[in-house]
């Protein structure tokens, strides 16, 4: 949702709106995720904004993915031929209706593969949350490994779990792609 809003803002004909979006994307893409995570969790409290580890992680990851996904959605929207907008206009659709009924359904087909990429990256990036004490998958493995020294077994298991989650997502992706491609000649 954040990504869609940013993508639309970036495409806006209003210069101020599109510049804000451009700035946001440039910040997100220009700084490491780990730094963003630390800023939300460790640096914001200095300004009186104290956030628990879990919500902090959720906020940082959302802002990060929002930036990347916005660019994917923007390029997907731009990939739809201008004639589709014009045809929608000539059957009297407003901008919002044309976007929702005509453009986004077609753009989603284009956007699914790269968005899935981003989503799968996100799953693996959640391991970074261990650094701000969120007990996610990797952290759990670390905690278990510390007293037992069974690094290979435990981190290996963690790796397998990540792999399984990503496999499930990939499967979901191909199902979705298949569904969205029903109107395309093969």
């Amino acid at each position: 949702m954040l990504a869609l809003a940013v993508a639309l803002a970036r495409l806006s004909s209003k210069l101020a709106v599109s510049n804000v979006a451009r700035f946001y994307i440039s910040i997100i893409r220009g700084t490491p995720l780990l730094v963003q995570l630390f800023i939300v969790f460790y640096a914001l409290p200095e300004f009186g904004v104290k956030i628990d580890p879990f919500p902090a992680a959720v906020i940082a990851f959302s802002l990060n993915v929002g930036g990347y996904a916005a660019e994917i959605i923007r390029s997907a929207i731009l990939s739809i031929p201008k004639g589709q907008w014009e045809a929608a206009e000539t059957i009297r659709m407003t901008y919002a209706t044309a976007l929702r009924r005509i453009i986004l359904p077609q753009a989603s087909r284009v956007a699914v593969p790269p968005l899935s990429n981003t989503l799968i990256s996100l799953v693996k990036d959640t391991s970074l949350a261990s650094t701000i004490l969120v007990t996610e998958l990797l952290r759990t493995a670390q905690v278990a490994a510390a007293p037992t020294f069974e690094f290979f077994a435990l981190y290996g298991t963690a790796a397998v779990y990540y792999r399984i989650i990503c496999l499930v997502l990939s499967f979901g992706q191909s199902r979705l792609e298949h569904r969205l491609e029903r109107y395309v000649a093969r």
Partner: protein
Amino acid sequence: MTEDRIVAQGVEKAFGENEVLKGISFTVPAGSATTVIGPSDSGKTTLLRALNALDVPDSGVIRVGDVELDFSQPVSKDQLLRYRAQSGMVFQSHNLFPHKTALQNVTDGPLIVQKRPRDEVETEAVELLRKVGLADKRDQYPYQLSGGQQQRVGIARAVALRPKVVLFDEPTSALDPELVGEVLSMITDLAPEGWTMVIVTHEIQFASQVSDQVLFIDGGVVLEKGPPAEVIGDPKEERTRQFLDRILHPI
């Protein structure tokens, strides 16, 4: 004396430095077919798009159906929408919605925009598809149709909204030669039904058959207008004669 569906006066449009329309005036009586012919880059497509505000003119007054706009004044989005609602457009490259079936392409406008009841809209759309000879294709996606069939769905989509005027932008230019006929005869069939049509075309034969009025446009102005027997059959302007000669005897 029939009323005029389109009255255009002094329409001007420039893209940057390039003046495309340099003061075009004409009228289209209700229930008549007007074809616009002329060399490429003469401004005929821009003129058609001005009638639909896909390209908004810089100046001039145009009335389409019940809505008159003076483009030398600032016009609001709302005014443009009402102006646009007077006409339907058939594109050169059909621009059907690829993710919707033939039937959905036709029903979308009436359902979503006009919010008319579904069963009424669908009955009407099926009837329209039957008229364009595609009753059995209603549930096919555009990619499953031939170019000519796609264009005929495009025509059905444009008239489904019951516009006051139907605009055709070179409806056969993107088609294989053997498919041109089916689309043109489709349009010829529509003419006696009382539709008011403005058709930009390169098909001179078709233009002389279907039209009540022919506009010959060159260099952004109307050089000649009148019934096809005059403009095509016996052109007064040297420029028109040259153009027709080149089209009718290309070799």
